[in-house]
């Protein structure tokens, strides 16, 4: 396989998966907050402010979710398109989790999203609430199956080698409980909650900063507090799962850790050891990228922690929440940071395991499809600009709607609404 095709396939996967990940981060976190908000709104039926909060944040959630789905459609096909060698060698193992993701999670998720977003006036409020919980839980299930797939690639367990040298699924339980998958799931689920919570705090801070909207019912004050108090525990859970992964990485991918720590002696030792085990080759991942991404993730954690701790104190004071405009600006500035950490963490995880696609078993260069460079150029030339367009327009819309604030939902014309039920009166 020529080097240009390989590079293109890698760039395509990196840019499209990274682009998709930007949507997932916000969606997963906002879904969780929204499900809790709607539960509270349903329990306390009397307070319209709660329902209005579900509507407003739900609107932003749906805008982002929609294009997240659109970008996700390609991801599933990309394994076959660009990485047929991987499917041929290990598809028996990781294909199963992808299949279960599509049917057990996504199929349900998408159907129920439609039922939720247009079901406001159609269903009993408890049914409508249950629909949102189904959407939220299947979103987590989806993340789980994808991380089972990714966990296997990072830390192959549960497979056995067949007669023709390819892999097949041997131990289903081992595949489903892979520690690399489970730890990454905890890490990413919490980080997504952090992303959603800081988004909520930042958007609320914007409205409080501008003072244009009447906040007498506490719509934005409440939202800001929810954002801050959800972000704080989410941050600590994220960090805890991040730290727990270190030992795992040390055991399964010591080279990644050595590169991150810039320990040249250890790198040389591991390179020699792996050359002996796997034959001649370069077993050192791209050092600057791996190390830089890991450092960036840690640095962003630091940048978020201190303002967030102070925010947790300030959020207890109503006057500060309404009037402390410098703090509002800080909260707005925090919004992009979890995204930076998400992408950096993902680059650290994926770049740091090179040259392997299935760690210790299959090299990335052997996984790429047998397609011509021209074909790969066509694919990159179509998908990369398309993803860029989707991301830009999505954020433009998201910010436009976030700035507009809560507005009453547009109603369908009278005649298309369901018939009111005739009540018998005597």
């Amino acid at each position, binding site marked *: 396989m020529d080097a240009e095709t390989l590079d293109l396939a890698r760039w395509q996967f990196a840019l499209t998966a990274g682009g998709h990940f930007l949507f997932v981060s916000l969606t997963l976190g906002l879904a969780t907050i929204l499900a809790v908000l709607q539960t509270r709104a349903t329990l306390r039926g009397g307070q319209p402010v709660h329902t209005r909060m579900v509507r407003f944040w739900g609107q932003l959630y749906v805008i982002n979710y929609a294009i997240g789905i659109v970008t996700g459609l390609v991801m599933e096909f990309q394994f076959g398109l660009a990485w047929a060698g991987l499917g041929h060698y290990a598809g028996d193992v990781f294909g199963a989790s992808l299949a279960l993701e599509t049917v057990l999670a996504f199929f349900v998720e998408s159907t129920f999203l439609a039922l939720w977003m247009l079901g406001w006036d159609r269903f009993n409020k408890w049914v409508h609430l249950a629909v949102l919980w189904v959407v939220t839980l299947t979103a987590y299930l989806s993340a789980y199956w994808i991380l089972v797939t990714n966990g296997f690639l990072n830390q192959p367990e549960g497979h056995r080698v067949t007669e023709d040298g390819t892999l097949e699924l041997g131990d289903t339980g081992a595949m489903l409980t892979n520690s690399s998958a489970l730890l990454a799931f905890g890490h990413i689920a919490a980080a997504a909650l952090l992303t959603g919570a800081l988004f909520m705090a930042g958007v609320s801070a914007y409205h409080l900063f501008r003072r244009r909207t009447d906040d007498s019912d506490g719509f934005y004050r409440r939202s800001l507090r929810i954002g801050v108090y959800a972000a704080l525990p989410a941050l600590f859970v994220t960090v805890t799962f991040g730290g727990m992964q270190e030992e795992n990485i040390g055991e399964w991918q010591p080279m990644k850790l050595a590169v991150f720590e810039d320990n040249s002696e250890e790198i040389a030792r591991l390179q020699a050891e792996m050359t002996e085990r796997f034959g001649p080759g370069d077993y050192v991942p791209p050092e600057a990228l791996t190390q830089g991404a890991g450092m960036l993730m840690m640095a962003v954690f630091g940048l978020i922690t201190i303002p967030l701790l102070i925010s947790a104190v300030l959020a207890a004071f109503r006057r500060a929440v309404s009037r402390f405009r410098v703090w509002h600006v800080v909260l707005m500035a925090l919004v992009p940071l979890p995204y930076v950490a998400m992408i950096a963490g993902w680059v650290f995880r994926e770049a740091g395991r090179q040259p392997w696609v299935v760690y210790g078993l299959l090299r990335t260069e052997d996984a790429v499809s047998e397609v011509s460079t021209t074909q790969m150029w066509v*694919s990159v030339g179509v998908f990369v600009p398309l993803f860029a367009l989707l991301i830009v327009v999505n954020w433009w819309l998201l910010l436009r709607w976030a700035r507009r604030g809560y507005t009453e939902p547009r109603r369908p014309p009278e005649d298309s609404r369901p018939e009111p039920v005739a009540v018998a009166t005597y």
Partner: protein
Amino acid sequence: MELIAALLLGFFFAGYFVLGGADIGLGMLLPYLGREESERQLAVAGVWPVFLANEVWLVATAGVFIGCFPALEGELFSGLVLVLVPLLAGWMIRDAGLWWGRQAPRAGFWLTVVGSWTLALSWGWLIASLLTDTPTEPAPPALGAVTSLAIALLFLAHGMGFAALRLSGVPFERARQVAGRGAGGNSFALTSAVMFVLPLLAGARLPLSDSAASDTALRLVVPALLVILPLLLAGQVWLWRTFGRRVEGPAPAYF
């Protein structure tokens, strides 16, 4: 197990053609059915929100394919890159148009139309490729072009029947004139049958039984699919019962 896996694959693929084909066909017909702004909005409302529940059948097809026949999936998809790239791009553009149409009706409308046509024509080329002796290579241009047009016509006919069942007012009248009497019911039943059989015929030529996944993998995936299937179908029925009635105005806007 292999046989059940192949049947599930066929079921999802055929289901996509019948259900997804209907809203894709309607998407292709939008400029014909809706000529004024209100007509256009009504015609677009016919696609909402059922396309969300229809396209998941294709996602499930691809999932079952990679889970139960992984090696073949890679061979086929990498062989058909030039067909699948426009297919996926058309799908994305169409969906983006449907979502953004709520903010920018004009742009959304045309993105939906262009995406729907790209998608239908690409399906034609893909079906043509599957029907040749070398399914893992794109069909030659002449055969591909002819089949694409034929399949696009089939999508149009299917979409027209769907429009006659789904729409009202002037767009409905336009669809009914073409789809025939019986409010479109008859032609829709016929095109549905063709849409169901066509993907099965094309898929039946793939060497599925030689390329099934291992028993362990199938024993994980197939029973899980069989258990969830009644629930998936119940969700579909629920959605169609709630939103599948004839539309009489623009889509109820959530945002």
